[in-house]
């Protein structure tokens, strides 16, 4: 009995992206943002998508969230095609995106209110989640009274309030300072550990992706393709001390190598196109000298 319960729980929240292609604009202004990407997030898995800026990773997340329709391929959640946004997918944005006119608690209640849950039940759930985020004493504050880290913690529990099957996070800690970021990563692993839902996490921070993820997809520069998939064998629960272990360092080195090529390619596509030495330190004054 309990086995079947566990199975049904685990089988929810399977994200499957197949042969995805996204093209913006038409004719001369055509930009291929994402090209032939397939990826998946297993139920309850924490997956990061990492790549240089402009590689289309946010576009991919927008498709899974239901904001953007792909030009080719399809995105499925538990076997069903994703066509529009819905509360089965919680989204956390880089910009804090809290409603400034609602108190902290009302922000967390928002999804439940939209689902027609009665006031007293909304209140109980929101307070439990705020307690989890360590922000219960701020329940009646307005978002503008809080720091960036606090706002993003609220953003996370607000997305969790409707018990979604997956959580989509678009560089959620990108606007935070380094210290806050590290603490937020720990808080997120703890929250994820308790909810056990699938997470698709967009970032360009290598350490962040390793610390949080079970698997990491590395994307190429535009047009975005999947360059590599890295498994993170570090045990759970993750702690801050793990970032000093050799295994962690090795993974950082490996990912740095992969990303560096792509960052350079993203920065200097023209140079690459002209057939000059495109990568690494060779692109320097000498390379520019050849052009003129």
């Amino acid at each position, binding site marked *: 009995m309990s086995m079947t319960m566990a199975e049904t729980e685990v089988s929810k929240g399977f994200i499957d992206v197949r042969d995805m292609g996204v093209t913006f604009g038409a004719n001369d202004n055509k930009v291929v943002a994402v090209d032939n990407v397939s990826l998946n997030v297993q139920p309850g898995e924490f997956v990061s998508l990492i790549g240089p800026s402009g590689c289309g990773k946010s576009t991919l997340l927008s498709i899974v*969230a*239901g*904001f953007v329709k792909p030009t080719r391929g399809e995105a499925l959640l538990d076997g069903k095609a994703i066509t*529009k*946004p*819905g*509360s089965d*997918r*919680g*989204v956390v*944005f880089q*910009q804090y*995106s809290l*409603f*400034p*006119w*609602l108190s902290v608690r009302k922000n967390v209640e*928002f*999804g439940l*209110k*939209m*689902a027609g849950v009665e006031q007293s039940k909304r209140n109980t759930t929101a*307070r*439990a*989640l705020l*307690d*989890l*985020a*360590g*922000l*219960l*004493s*701020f329940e009646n504050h*307005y*978002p*503008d*009274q809080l720091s960036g880290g606090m706002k993003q913690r609220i953003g996370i529990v*607000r*997305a969790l309030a*409707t018990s979604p099957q997956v959580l989509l996070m678009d560089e959620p800690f990108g606007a935070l300072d380094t210290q806050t970021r590290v*603490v937020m990563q*720990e*808080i997120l692993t*703890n*929250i994820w*550990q*308790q909810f*056990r839902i699938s997470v698709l996490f967009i970032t360009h921070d290598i350490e962040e992706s390793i610390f949080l993820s079970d698997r990491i997809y590395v994307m190429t520069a535009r047009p975005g393709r999947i360059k590599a998939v890295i498994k993170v064998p570090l045990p759970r*629960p993750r702690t801050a001390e793990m970032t000093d272990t050799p295994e962690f360092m090795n993974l950082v080195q490996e990912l740095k190598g992969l990303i560096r090529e792509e960052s350079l390619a993203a920065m200097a596509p023209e140079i690459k196109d002209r057939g000059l030495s495109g990568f690494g330190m060779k692109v320097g004054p000498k390379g520019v000298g050849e052009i003129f």
Partner: protein
Amino acid sequence: MGSTATAKIVALPMVDKHADPEPVAVEVKASAAQMSAAEIPVPEPEPIPTVSLTKVFLGLLGYVTRERMITALLACISIGALFLFWYLGTKYRLEFYIRFKNVPTPYEVYQQLTLVGLSNKYLFNIAISVRRILLGFMIATIIGVPLGLAIGKYERVRDFFMPVVEIMRPIPAIAWVPMSIMLWPNNEASIVFITFIGAFFPILLNTIHGVHSLDGVLVRAARCLGASEIRLFMNVILPGSLPHIFTGLAVGMGVAWVSLIAAEMISGQFGVGYFTWEAYSLVDYPAIVLGMITIGVLGLACSGIIRMVGVLLMPWLAFAPGGRR
């Protein structure tokens, strides 16, 4: 206050260190248990935050009153200077391009106020004007805000309405007077219509602007949280545009008064504008100034009420970056 502060202290380390995948409900119970346990050994957790809060509050109060005193002082000086200029001008019958020859003195106007101020005629004129303003302004709000929200949100609605709006908008409300008299069955309706025209466009355009300046990520966030179209309007687009809507209401109220007084002067029976124009026809100079001051005070009161409603309806703006507008 004391208990919620304790709850926070208990909750924080739990989030950081807790590793077991337990459901949320259990977590909350545990925190409640720890909370009551934590409260037993500490005999008086209440006074500490209360005292500091009171101190903060008093400090804030002191700061605010001092700021307000300066504000009030400057206001008194500026209004005083205006009256002083008026007083000196009329006392010495100033004639330096502008002519104070026929301008009544402040005292004459004051006498006029005591003479006429409590008369039924004067109060009746005020009541009539206020009724026209309220009617015109309310109709403009009821039509302008929903229409503005729809135009701001939907491109097709915008494409349909904006050409008409753009043509009508530059026509000042006063230019509507002759047409309005032809259009409406009676004088009262035509004046209310002109007041409506004055208030309508600022309200409409500011509402549209409010929708456009709403952060798109909030709309996307609401959609992800399962908001249907109607709920999106009521719970996100309307409150999100509210600051701009209130700017529109304040501007609209000002223009409504301008339009009302002009309409009353041209075509009116009764009303403060009519009162002022009648005084001019009857060469009753102090009554002209009394009429003008009445208009000023009524306009001030109306925008004051709008501002007050705005503050009550949008408490979050006190904390917004840049503070209150």
